Every structure is written in C-alpha cells, then in structure tokens.
C-alpha cells in the first residue's frame, strides 16, 4: 500500500493541517509517513499545498508529483494537480470554489460542497476537518477513531470550545458517502 | 623594607611589546590592579582584540580568548553566558570597536550583557601602521587620510561613549584620559567601578580611555600627550555618561 496525497488550496484553508492529521494518524497506525509542505511567501494568501506519503514500505522520495489522492480546495489547485493525478486515483473537489470541472474520466472524482458543509457545522475554519472526513470516508486510508483521538488530544490542549464543531465536520465528511 | 610599588599579580611576568611612550601598558596595569584589589583574577576571563593590543591575551594572568577583529563583545557574550559565575571583560581599540565591530558593541550593550568593555581610543590604527580610524579627528592626517580627514567625505569621528549612552541597558559608561598622573588616578577609579559593578552582576559597563600613539602620530611621547589634550579632549569630552548606581540615590545624571 502506498498513498501519495496532495492537499492544495488557498493559504488559510488549512491544507497543511489536513496533511498533518492524515500523516500523524497513519504513523500511529504503524505506517511509514512523510509530510512535505510548500513553504515561503506563497503561503501568505497564495496557494499552499502539502505532499503526504503513507506507505507500508520505507519512503524514499517524499515528493509527490503524481498523486493517487488529491484534495483540491480551490480552482487553481484542481487545475494544477488534477491533470497530474494518477489514472484510477481519487480526486476530492470542493465544488464551492471550483466553477470549472476537471474533464477526466479515468479518475474517481468526488464532488462535495466542502465550504458549505463547514459553514453548516459552524465555521469555515472547520473546512479542513470536512476534507479529512471525506478522505477517510472515501479511501479508508486511516481509521476514523485514530483521527478522532488526535483531534481530541490536540483541541483539548489548545481550544476545547472548538471540539464539537470540528468533530461534527469530521463526521459530516465521513457521512457524505451515506447521504 | 616596605614595598611601595610592584607588578600587579593579575599581570603575567612577561614584558609588554608596546612602543616607547605608548599608554596601553598603563591601561593594562590599571585593569590588573583593579582585578587584584577586587580579588577577581581567578574568576575572570578576558577577550583580546585585533590591533596593537592583540597580544593582551599573553599579558593578563586570567584565562583569555583572542577574538576576530571587532567580534570581542560577541565572544564575551558567549563566554559570559557559558560561565555566568565569572567576570568577563574585553579590551578593544578604536578600529576594532567603532568600525568593524560596531554592530557587536552596540548590541551587547543593548542586551545589557554583564561584561566590561575597555575601549582605548587613540584616533588611529596603530598595528597596521597609522591608517584613519573611526575616531580620527577632523582634518587629522593619517596614511589613509593623507590630506586630512575630510568630514564632508568620510564623516565625523564617532563618539562611542555618547553613542552607547543613548541605550537604556548599559549600567555604567565613562570616558577617562591617561594623559597625566592625576588623570590616570581618576581613570583607575573608573576601572574599579566598572569591574566592581561587573562582579556584582549589575550589567554592561564601559570605560573609554583617551590615549595616544606617538609612533603613528609622529610626535614624541611627552608632546603627544599635549597634542591629545589640545585636540582630542576638545572633541571627546571627559565624563561619566551613565552610572545607574546613582539612580537610586536621586542621581546627578
């Protein structure tokens, strides 16, 4: 098993956090992981992306140029990484910010209004948790329980009042495939 | 027989290598006497500069480091932070402190590092053979200002004591002169103050010595002191620019 993930969006949408939670959960489940952000001025307001590799084998290159899982939170991200996604890969698209569709038949595209779901959960700030819910709901790359535990540990230290909105967002993402 | 004068214990038993009439020896001696009187030599470390006093590490009896040109206050910072149980001093000339090492002196003073800086200002580069210093006086001729220091071209001499006194952190800043026995006695008091405050962990202390360079000025020793009195002291005023110990007593400055 080897997941090569790119999460991409505007700076501030929380793409680095999406990657970090996925990598951390996979690490706790005994997988090899790497997390590599784009860094520099582009992060401040521009597009940001993170490459995450999750693998049973030792990870040689941490760079992902052709993902098999793409999380595209805005149009520039879909335009940039959509065509590079591996044949048969999964693309999770935030339809609220991508007016133009990706013209590909050979990938599994999940269209979800992620920003709207986040707002329904209480804040656009939980968009990243909606995305994580979608990723694990679709790919089962890590267990819901592992993410849930990490999220609780993280927020109980930092911002306990935000826990319920984040948990709801995570579940709404997961449940998207039941709806 | 009564001993009325002897080599300070804090000086190594080797002869100085300074030119005839040079005042570095006197500055060294004042520091060593003060170390003796405060009984701190065993718990003191010094930093020698690049310049005429480059061999100062051989002359003081305490442990010594030889710093790169201008970097003595940074080296002293590292030493004092590594050994907060010890007194640390630097000994620097005008090129070292006020030209190449401007950043280091300003920022160590601004941090209030618990170090003492002895600054010997003789308005010229001695070791490299008489080039213009940041403290060279207006119109003064040196080998790199052969037509005299042109203040419109290269600026005015830097008054290091006044400059550092604009900062909040320094505890003690004084300019003294080494031009006569009376002035040397006053200078000794200042050196003692600085090292006493250092021993008491009060913060950054700074003593500027107005000195001479008979060799590179091309003036014989006695006359060089008269020249310094007439020219340097007019520009570099003697005085205490900061003494925080007086703050608590309703202080004069």
């Amino acid at each position, binding site marked *: 098993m080897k997941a090569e993930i790119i999460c991409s969006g505007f700076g501030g949408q929380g793409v680095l956090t999406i990657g970090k939670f996925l990598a951390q959960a996979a690490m706790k489940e005994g997988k090899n*992981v790497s*997390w590599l952000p784009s860094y520099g001025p582009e992060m401040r307001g521009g597009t940001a992306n993170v490459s995450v590799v999750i693998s049973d084998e030792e990870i040689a290159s*941490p760079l992902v140029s052709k993902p098999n899982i793409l999380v595209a939170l805005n149009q520039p991200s879909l335009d940039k990484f959509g065509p590079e996604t591996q044949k048969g890969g999964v693309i999770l698209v935030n339809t609220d910010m991508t007016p133009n569709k990706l013209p590909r038949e050979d990938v599994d595209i999940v269209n979800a209004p992620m920003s709207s779901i986040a707002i329904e959960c209480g804040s656009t700030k939980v968009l990243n948790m909606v995305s994580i819910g979608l990723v694990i709901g679709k790919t089962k790359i890590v267990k819901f329980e592992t993410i849930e535990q990490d999220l609780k540990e993280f927020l109980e230290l930092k911002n306990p009042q935000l826990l319920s909105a984040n948990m709801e967002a995570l579940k709404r993402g997961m449940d998207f495939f039941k709806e | 027989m009564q001993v009325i004068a002897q080599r300070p214990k804090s000086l190594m038993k080797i002869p100085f290598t300074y030119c005839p009439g040079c005042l570095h020896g006197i500055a060294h001696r004042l520091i060593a006497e003060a170390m003796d009187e405060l009984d701190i030599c065993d718990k003191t470390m010094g930093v020698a500069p690049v310049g005429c006093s480059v061999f100062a590490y051989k002359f003081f009896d305490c442990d010594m480091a030889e710093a790169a040109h201008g970097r003595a206050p940074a080296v002293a910072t590292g030493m*004092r932070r*590594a050994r907060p149980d010890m007194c640390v001093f630097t000994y620097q000339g005008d090129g070292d402190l006020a030209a190449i090492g401007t950043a280091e002196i300003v920022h160590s003073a601004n941090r209030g590092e618990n170090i003492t800086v002895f600054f010997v200002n003789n308005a010229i580069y001695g070791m490299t053979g008489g080039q213009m210093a940041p403290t060279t006086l207006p119109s003064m001729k040196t080998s790199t200002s052969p037509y005299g220091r042109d203040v419109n071209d290269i600026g005015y001499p830097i008054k290091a004591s006044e400059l550092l006194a604009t900062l909040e952190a320094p505890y003690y800043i004084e300019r003294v002169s080494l031009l006569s026995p009376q002035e040397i006695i006053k200078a000794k008091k200042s050196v003692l103050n600085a090292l006493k405050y250092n021993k008491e962990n009060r913060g950054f202390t700074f003593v500027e010595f107005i000195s001479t360079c008979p060799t590179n000025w091309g003036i014989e020793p006695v006359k060089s002191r008269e020249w310094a009195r007439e020219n340097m002291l007019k520009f570099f005023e003697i005085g205490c620019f900061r003494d925080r110990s007086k703050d608590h007593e309703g202080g004069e400055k």
Partner: protein
Amino acid sequence: MAQKVLMKGNEAVAEAAIRAGCRLYFAYPITPQSELIEYMAKMMPKVNGTFIQAESEVAAINMIYGASGCGRRAMTSSSSPGISLKQEGISYIAGAKLPAVIVNVQRGGPGLGDIQPSQGDYFQATKGGGHGDYRVIVLAPNSVQEFADMAADAFDLADKYRNPVMILADGLLGQMMEPVEFKIAKTDQEIEELNKQHYDWCMRPNVDGEERHHHEINSLELDPNVLEKHVLSLNETYKKIEQNETSHEEYNINEDNEIFCVAFGTASRIVKSAITELKKKGHNVGLIRPRTVWPFPSEAINRAITGKVRKILVFELNLGQMVEDVQLSVNGKVPVDFMGRVGGIVFTPDEVIKKIQESL
C-alpha cells in the same frame, strides 16, 4: 522504546541537540531554518539554557567561539547566505581547536537566491569555506530521523577532535515532517561531566588546591615555524578523522552492478526511489550515499567498482560539486556522469530514471 513523534526536521534537530547536552544556542533568523531558532527560543529557557537571537550571523558564530572556548556544547544554525557570513568565525574556531556544531539548512543560491532546497554549498562546506588550511567535519542526513541523530553525533565528534562539525541539510529536510524517535536526554550531571572533559584547555576559574592555569583560546601565531607546526598538527587530526569517521550507506550495491549512483542528502532519496522503480523493471542499479561528505567515502566508492561496473552516475541539487570528489576517488577507472538541478528545484524520480536509462 520511546514513542515516535511527527516532527519537522528543523525542530527535530533542535530537540536532539538539547537532549545531547547543548545548553547554548546563538543564531539569526533566516528561511528555511526559522523553525529551528523558534524551537530553541521556546525550549532553551525550559532547560535553563541560553538562547540569544544575535544581531547577525557573524555575532552568533563568535558567541559560539566564546561559549565553546569555555568548554560548553554550543550550536548555531542558519541557511546558505547566513552560513557564508559565519565562515570567518568557523575559520577561527578551527584554528583555535574548538568544538562547535553548525547546522546549514541549504537554500538556492548564489546571492540571495531563493528559499527552496539546494545542495549548492557542498564546496563551501567540504573544502573549508573560510580562509586558511582547515577542515570541517560535514554530516549529510537524508531523513528527519537522521537529521536528529546527527545532532548527537556532531557534538560527540566535535568534542572528540576539538573541531567544528557541520550538519549539511537543506530546505526539504528542514521543512519536512517525518516520524522521529529521540535518544534519552542527557542529565545535568552528565552534561557537567562532558564539560569537565575540556578542563585541561578551556577557559574556566582558577580553583584553590588545583595547579594554577592560564588558558588561551587563540588562533594567532606570528612565528611561521610555530604556525606551520600548528597547521600540521591540525592536519594530523584531519587524517585521523578520515581514517575513523568516514561513513556511508549502500543500497543495492552488488557484484552484478553495471552502473551505480552516488548521491547525498535529499538527492539520495529521490535516486533511491528511481532505483527501486528500475529494480521492478529488472534493472540492477546500486547507490552509494555518503553520510559524511567530509571525510568523503572514497574507499567505499572504489570498492564498489567491481569488474562489471562501466559507469558511475552522480546526482546532486547543484551543478556538479560532489562529482569532483567522486572523480578523484575513481581516478579515471570508469567514466563518471552527472545530473543536477539548481534554483531550488528537486529532480523527480522520473527524471532520474530517464537519466539512468540512457546508460543502461
């Protein structure tokens, strides 16, 4: 076994340095190493250590000179342009025989360049960098775990040989997060023991009951005969380091290799990916990864040149710097070819595969 944590290379190396007994850290902010200085700012006060954000990289390295001169484990870090500024101090530290650890999280150059990963400082790191005849031990990690492990190695080597040690990383290793497991932290008592091993030369108080000392930390010697002796004695140390401390890793090196690659740091990971892919297609390509780039693993490279080897390929994130050391090692026995990317661009496994396939 200690628990694994997911951490950036910049933070992992800082944590590992503290655990190795570093209690003095001086540096100036620069991308892409800023997480390192920030981590130190946060953690040093918690272990009663010293953190100073210096006025410049020049000041920072000279603070190291002072702290190391007192026999303490001290570290600074920067990225390429800042490391250039530190070269003066590194030369003095080497000349004065002081232990010190310097981390370089390399970025693209020359000049301001950019802030993306690069290996453009190989020459500077391995050939001296500052003025005079001296060497710096240079460790080249290729993972966050190794970046952290090398912090302890660096301090041990610096102490053992009284010589500066550089950890030559890059923006990718600094910014990347990977699982990392830390060694047990040294206790205050153990650190005190480490300090004491330097008491025969470092600056310290004169204590009653001990023989009086006058220690000088110095690189100045105006007598050419004495200075020559000093430089030759440094060179003897370098020879010992070459004999004892050269380190490398081999991947898929075997007697049937017709081609093998040489790459270090980040580049070696990409090459390893490429070799793994080629293996699946039935191609037998090896990799030698120097862990120390000075001293350089010349012998290992020579040993790998068995009868069947007809070419060596060197991959670097520069325009060919280590390739010169490979050529010197090989000494014309087989051709040495090179591929590199610069400007902060990291080649992809596909690019490397393509380059290797040209020679298959």
